[in-house]
C-alpha cells in the first residue's frame, strides 16, 4: 500500500524533473560541450579544446569592451533603486488620487519594450527631441545623445532607470507598508527626527526588499540587450554593445555558436560570482525580522 503511494508520489514529482532535465539541464550541459568546439550552429561541432576560452581571454578586444559596457550600463541599478524608493515613499501616503499616480508610474512596466524604446529614440533625438528641448529651455545645448560615443551609454542608462522604475517602485511600496507603525511611534516619542527614523527604522526594515531588487536587477542588467539592439544597434563604435548583444551576434550572425557558448558560460560564472558576493555581503546590512 505504502509502496504504491510512493510510486505515485515520485511519478508526480518526475514531471517537473523531466521538464527541467529536458529543457534546462540537457541543453545547458550540451552548451558546455559546444563551448569547447568550433560550431556554426548548422553543422556538427568540431572539438577544439580550450581555444574559445583562450580567444575570449587573450585575443578578443571586443569581448572586454562589451564586458566593460555591460557594467557601465549597470549604473542604472543604484540610480534606479534610489529613484524608485523616493517615488515609493511619496506614493506611500494618503492623498486623493494616489491610485492614479501609482498606476501612472507602473504603466511603463506593462508596455512593450519595443514601443518604449522607439518612443525614447524620439525623446533623445538631437534636433527635435523632447529631452534636448527641455534642456534648451534652461539654456543647455543638449548632445546628439544616441549618435555620440560619449553620450550614447548615459542615454541608455537614463532609459534603463526609467524602464525599471515601475516594478521596483511597487516592490518598495509593499515593503514600506510592512514597516511596523509602532516602531515609528516609539521613535517619535523618544524625539527622533524624520531623517533619523528613515535611516534607522525604514531602511533596515525594507532591506530584504533592497537585496531582492539588487540581485534581480543585477542579473537582468548583465543580460540586457534588446533595447540596445533597437535604439543604437550597439553603436557608435561599439560604445553600447553589451556582452549579450555581442554574444548574440557571434551566435547568429558570425556563425560562431561555439565561441558564443564559451562567452555565455563566462558570463554565467560571472553572474554567479556577483550573486554569491551579494549574498555574502548582505549579512552585514540586511535585517530579517
Amino acid at each position, binding site marked *: 500500500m505504502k509502496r504504491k503511494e510512493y510510486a505515485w508520489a515520485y511519478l508526480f514529482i518526475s514531471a517537473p524533473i523531466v521538464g527541467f*532535465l529536458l529543457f534546462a539541464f540537457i541543453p545547458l550541459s550540451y552548451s558546455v560541450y559546444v563551448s569547447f568546439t568550433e560550431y556554426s550552429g548548422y553543422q556538427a561541432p568540431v572539438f577544439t579544446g580550450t581555444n574559445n576560452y583562450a580567444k575570449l581571454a587573450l585575443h578578443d578586444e571586443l569581448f572586454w569592451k562589451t564586458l566593460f559596457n555591460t557594467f557601465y550600463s549597470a549604473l542604472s541599478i543604484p540610480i534606479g533603486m534610489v529613484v524608485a524608493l523616493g517615488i515609493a515613499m511619496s506614493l506611500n501616503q494618503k492623498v486623493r488620487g494616489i491610485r492614479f499616480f501609482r498606476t501612472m508610474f507602473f504603466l511603463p512596466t506593462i508596455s512593450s519594450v519595443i514601443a518604449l524604446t522607439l518612443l525614447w529614440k524620439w525623446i533623445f533625438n538631437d534636433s527635435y527631441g523632447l529631452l534636448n528641448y527641455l534642456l534648451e529651455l534652461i539654456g543647455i545645448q543638449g548632445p546628439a545623445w544616441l549618435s555620440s*560615443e560619449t553620450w550614447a551609454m548615459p542615454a541608455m542608462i537614463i532609459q534603463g532607470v526609467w524602464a525599471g522604475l515601475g516594478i521596483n517602485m511597487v516592490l518598495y511600496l509593499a515593503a514600506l507598508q510592512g514597516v511596523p507603525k509602532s516602531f515609528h511611534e516609539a521613535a517619535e516619542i523618544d524625539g527622533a527626527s524624520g531623517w533619523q527614523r528613515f535611516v534607522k527604522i525604514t531602511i533596515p526594515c525594507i532591506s530584504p526588499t533592497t537585496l531582492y531588487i539588487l540581485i534581480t536587477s543585477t542579473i537582468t542588467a548583465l543580460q540586457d540587450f534588446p533595447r540596445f539592439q533597437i535604439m543604437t*544597434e550597439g*553603436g*557608435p563604435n561599439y560604445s553600447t554593445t553589451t556582452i549579450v548583444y555581442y554574444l548574440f551576434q557571434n551566435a547568429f550572425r558570425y556563425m560562431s555558436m561555439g565561441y558564443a557558448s564559451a562567452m555565455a558560460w563566462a558570463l554565467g560564472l560571472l553572474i554567479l560570482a556577483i550573486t554569491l558576493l551579494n549574498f555574502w555581503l548582505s549579512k552585514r546590512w540586511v535585517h530579517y525580522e
Partner: protein
Amino acid sequence: MRLGKGKSLLAVTASLTLLAGMTACGGNNGKEPSAGADSTAKSTAKSSASGSQAPGGDPVKIKFAGWGDPSEKEVFTKLIKDFEAKNPTIKVEYLHIPADYVGKMNTILAGGDAPDVFYVPDGDFGRWVSQGLLHPIQEFVDSSSIDTGDMWESGLLRYRYDGAVNGKGPLYALPKDIGPTVLYYNKEIFTKMNVPFPSADTPMTFEQLLDTAKKLTVEENGKIKQYGMGPIWWEGFVFGNGGAFLSDDRREFVGNGEAAVAALQFAADLANVHKVVPNAAALKDMNDSQMFQTGRLAMMITGRWMVPEFRKLGFDWDVAPLPVNKWAGWSGSVGIGIYSKTKQIEAAYKLVEYLGGPEGQKEQSLMGFAIPSFKSMAATEVFLQPGQKPEHAEVFINAAENQVPGPWTNLPNAKWFDMLSQGLAPMWDGKKSAADVLNGLKPKIDAAIKEGNPAIFK
C-alpha cells in the same frame, strides 16, 4: 531504505530522459552531410532536371516561407493560388513570418527541418549558402524557360557562390526583387527656393551636390530648420568615387585607399564642415524618411522600396541618380532559394521559377516596391507606371544596370563589415580624419576577414 528507493527511481527517470535527449541530439547531428551535399545535390539536380515530371496521383506538398507587409502577403497568396492552378500536382503551404524573419529562419534551419522554398535576403545569403543550407539551382535555371540574359547581372551575381566567396560560381537563388538606391527630392522645396531640379540622366558630382545642398539648407537663429541633403549612404559614395572595400580576391580590406578615403571624408564634411546634412551618424536618431516626409529634408537617399509609402505624400517629389560623380551605388535584394535537404526539389524549383519568372515578377512590380528582375519588363508600363510618381522612373532602370550588391554581401561572414561601420563613428563625429580612421581599422578588419572566412585563404 525509503531514501534509497527514491534515489533509484529518480536515477531511472533521469537516465531515461538523458537517453531520450541523446537520441534527439543524435538525430540532430544527422544533418551533418549537408555540407558535402553540394556535389551530390548537383548531380541529382542534373538528373532530375532533365528527368521526368512528378508522377501523377497524389499532389506533392511543399512549404514556402517569407515575410512582408500585408500587401506583399496578399500578392503572394494570390500568386500561389495561381501557381497551384497551373500546377495541379503541387500544393503549396505558405508560411508568412511577419517579424524577425532572419532570426526565426536561423532557428528553423539549425533545427534541420526548414521549408522547401524560402526568402533569402542577400545579406544572409552568404551565411546560409556557406553552411550548405541552399540547394544549387544553376542546372535547373539553365534547362528552364528563364532567360537569365534578360536579367540584371548584379541581381543574379549576389546569389552565386563558388565555395569561398559570393558573387562567383553557380546560382543558388533567383532574385525575388531588386531595389536600386537613388536620390529622392522634394520638388516643392526646389521650386520654392528657385533651385533647378537635378538631372535624371547625369549624376551630380560631389561639388554639384554640395552646391545644391547649400542652396537648400535653411538656417534660422543659429538653428537649422531645413537640411539640403539627408544622411549619407556612404557605401555608394565610395563606389561612385572609384573606390572599393575589398580586394578582388576578397582577402584584404582596401577601403583605406585614396578614392575611398576622399569619398568618406567628403561625406563626413557635408555634416561637420558644411552643415548641409543632419549629423551624419544620426540616421538612427530620427528616421530620415520621416524628416523627408515632414519637409525637413530637400533631398535624401533611399531605395525603390520607399515608393509606395512616398506615393501617399501630400507634396510632389521625384527621383534622380545617386549624386556620386557617376552612375554607381548599391542595390538591395531578396532572393528565393531552395532548402538543401528538400525532398521535393522539382516542385520546389517550379515555384522558384514561377515567383522569380515573368509572371511572379509582374505581380510584384505592380506593388511598386521593386524593379522587375527582367530588363525587358522594366521598360514597360508594368514598372514605369505612367501617371504615378515618380515621373522619372527610368532612373531606377539605369541604377539597376550600374549598381552592385552591398559590400556586406561580399563574404559569408560579415563581421568585417560590422567592424567597419561601427569603427567609422569618430570620423562622423569629426574627431578624426577619414584617413586616420580607415588606416587604423585596416589591420583589425583584415584579421576579421581572415578569421571569419577561412575558405578564401585555402
